[in-house]
């Protein structure tokens, strides 16, 4: 397999995953706001933190209103942080490897880009948003399933899984980082709402039902954190994602040093007592994880992708 092709597959998977996660985050935030009491609502700003695009956003919009944030994340083609631009970048990568991915998958991705763009106005209305985001999530999941079911499970497929799971792990930590910040002022009568907050964290990751099944506990911060970081069963848990990356890297040639790095990341996840971390420590821990995910990407790129001089710039 060509190094460039491996790289395109990897980025295609990352962008599709990123589009899906962005849709999830917007959907859950909208629901959360409906449940929280007035005045407590954290608003829409945290979504911009999650995507790490504060600077870009502030350059374009004056306030963190619902309309602005949703537009930025759904349909702003210039923002490079919107669902549409993620899908478009996924398609650009797919275009460069049209000969590798099954034709139906290309058609599906192409249709997803066109459809998402065509019905954007619907997605920007409060009433149409749910159906719109749901169709984005379904489209991405459908694509993932189609690739799993129709593409040779060869080296290319390994790079697809590496990209998807690395992106997923990264996004899970971002969502936890932002969503776990204490939404509620002091030790007040608002405690019941803390449960709602953590339920919302789980729901952003479609983790609520699975959490219930595997934990049978009430929803508390320590348990949710342990579940989302350390579960080896839940597919969006950070640990599980790393195991998937490891399984796809292992069969590749010259994988020693990448495997060593993953071993270290896995230990870092397993050994941390995430349940008892307070907010600042949790934040620092997540920062450290994100840095090391960056290292892992770097290791993958140097080992298997085109040498730097041959690579066109590609934003991470």
């Amino acid at each position, binding site marked *: 397999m060509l190094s460039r092709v491996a790289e395109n597959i990897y980025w295609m998977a990352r962008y599709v995953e990123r589009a899906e996660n962005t849709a999830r985050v917007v959907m859950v935030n909208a629901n959360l706001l409906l449940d929280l009491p007035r005045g407590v609502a954290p608003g829409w700003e945290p979504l911009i933190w999650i995507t790490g695009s504060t600077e870009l956003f502030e350059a374009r919009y004056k306030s963190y209103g619902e309309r602005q944030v949703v537009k930025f994340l759904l349909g702003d083609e210039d923002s490079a942080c919107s669902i549409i631009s993620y899908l478009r970048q996924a398609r*650009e990568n797919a275009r460069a490897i*049209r*000969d590798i991915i099954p034709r139906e998958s290309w*058609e599906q991705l192409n249709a997803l880009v066109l459809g998402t763009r065509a019905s954007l106005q619907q997605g920007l209305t409060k009433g149409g948003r749910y159906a719109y985001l749901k169709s984005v999530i379904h489209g991405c999941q459908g694509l993932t399933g189609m690739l799993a079911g129709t593409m040779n499970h060869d080296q290319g497929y390994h790079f697809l899984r590496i990209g998807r799971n690395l992106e997923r792990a990264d996004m899970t930590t971002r969502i936890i980082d932002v969503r776990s910040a204490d939404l509620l002022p002091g030790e007040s009568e608002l405690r019941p709402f803390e449960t709602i907050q953590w339920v919302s964290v789980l729901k952003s990751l479609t983790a609520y039902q699975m959490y219930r099944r595997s934990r049978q506990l009430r929803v508390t911060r320590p348990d949710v954190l342990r579940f989302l970081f350390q579960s080896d069963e839940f597919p969006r848990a950070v640990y599980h994602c790393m195991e998937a990356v490891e399984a796809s890297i292992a069969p590749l*040639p010259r994988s020693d040093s990448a495997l060593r790095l993953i071993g270290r990341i896995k230990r870092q996840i397993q050994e941390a007592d995430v349940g008892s971390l307070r907010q600042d420590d949790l934040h620092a821990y997540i920062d450290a994880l994100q840095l090391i995910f960056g290292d892992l990407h770097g290791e993958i790129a140097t080992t298997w992708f085109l040498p730097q001089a041959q690579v066109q710039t590609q934003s991470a």
Partner: protein
Amino acid sequence: MPIDWKQYRSEGFYDEIIGPRGGPRRSARHLARHLAQMDAAELTARQAAADLAITEMGITFTVYCDESGGAIDRAWPFDIIPRIIPESEWRRVEEGLKQRVTALNLFIDDLYHEQKVVRDGVFPEAVLKSSSNFRPQCVGVNPPYGVWAHICGSDLVRDADGTFYVLEDNLRVPSGVSYMLENRLVTKRVFPELFEDYAPLPVDDYPSQLFDTLATLSPRPADYPEVVVLTPGIYNSAYFEHAYLAQQMGCELVEGRDLFVDDDDCVYMRTVDGPARVDVIYRRVDDLFLDPEAFRPDSMLGVPGLLRAWKAGNVGLANAPGAGVADDKVVYSYVPELIRYYLDQDPVIPNVPTLRCMEPEVLKHVLTNLDTLVVKPANESGGYGMIVGPASTQKEREAFAVQLRKDPRNYIAQPTLRLSTVPTVVDSQVEPRHVDLRPFILSADRQYVTTGGLTRVALRRGSLVVNSSQGGGSKDTWIVPQGEE
């Protein structure tokens, strides 16, 4: 309201479906009857189904790109009514194309060796000297079978009496074959019942024929030589086709940066498993960009040392660098003579009568008759830089005359042809539109011609320009066996 063929008029042109008396031609009877049963709503629905299929299948061509937006894809404009050509007629065309390409390859090989054709006074030295596509770097090279143009796309047109003429030969990196293949798939989706009346000859063996042709160029005898398709990248207008052909042949689609030439003068591609030797490159990158060491040093699309590897016989290149010397409209005007010179045969398919503006008398004649002639630059493709006299304004002709006087060697003139027409869906009705045909000819150890080719159609009323970059569309082309005529 169903289609009324009595309302259909293609005055003064050869219509390929409807004969001069208003009734359908023999080979098109079923088609005409079938269309006559459809009303406007159904016709529109079928056309919409085809457009949807094309959008979803992602059959596109790239128009241009801007820095932020990436490539701009336009859906491939397609008309659902197929064009029908009887097989008996087609076999003759096929024979003529093989004859033509054989002569052209002998000509190219001669130019890069002894140049007998020049010494024997058949082809003027002056034309060769001023050719922008002659590559001195290629002199003395001996590609396998003496073949330089392995893939040729020749454009055919029919004039008012229905005779096929060759309009031009594309020997550099001709494109369009993927659309020919895709058009058939779309027709099968939207007009399945027509296939009950006709069994058009299949077109889909082209990719395997192409692979076999390329495989014979491998320097290493092997059952599965490593054949790759070299593309300039996703911003090229024909990128869709490059990806499509690579996929259909099961080859890697590579860009210049994927390849390198090592100290052993062999070509390798960078893979996840390390370097892998490449045997044959189907290059869709223009000569001048192929190898910055040998040609343009600023090329980012090529592979340094590629020409060296090819000359050393370590890699096959199709088409061979330098093959474009015969892809010159002035050279085109000599093809009938070349066929006689090299093969001692009369041309099976005639050329369109062509005037060479480099001859002073001719230039004078062309300048005074600009309003009736079509004048084209010798080395452009895509319909750029040409003038169609009858459709031009006085101002355009004056501006064109200035260009023409500056560089007469670079222009040829032809009569404005009365291109044949085929019924085409326009606003829920059928109207005649002008067409041409681009078949593809493969040459190596043996020759192969596509069954039919890509029919391009000028979608604007009265327009004679069929290039997709100039608002043209396409049609499925059916070669129909004898018994069904």
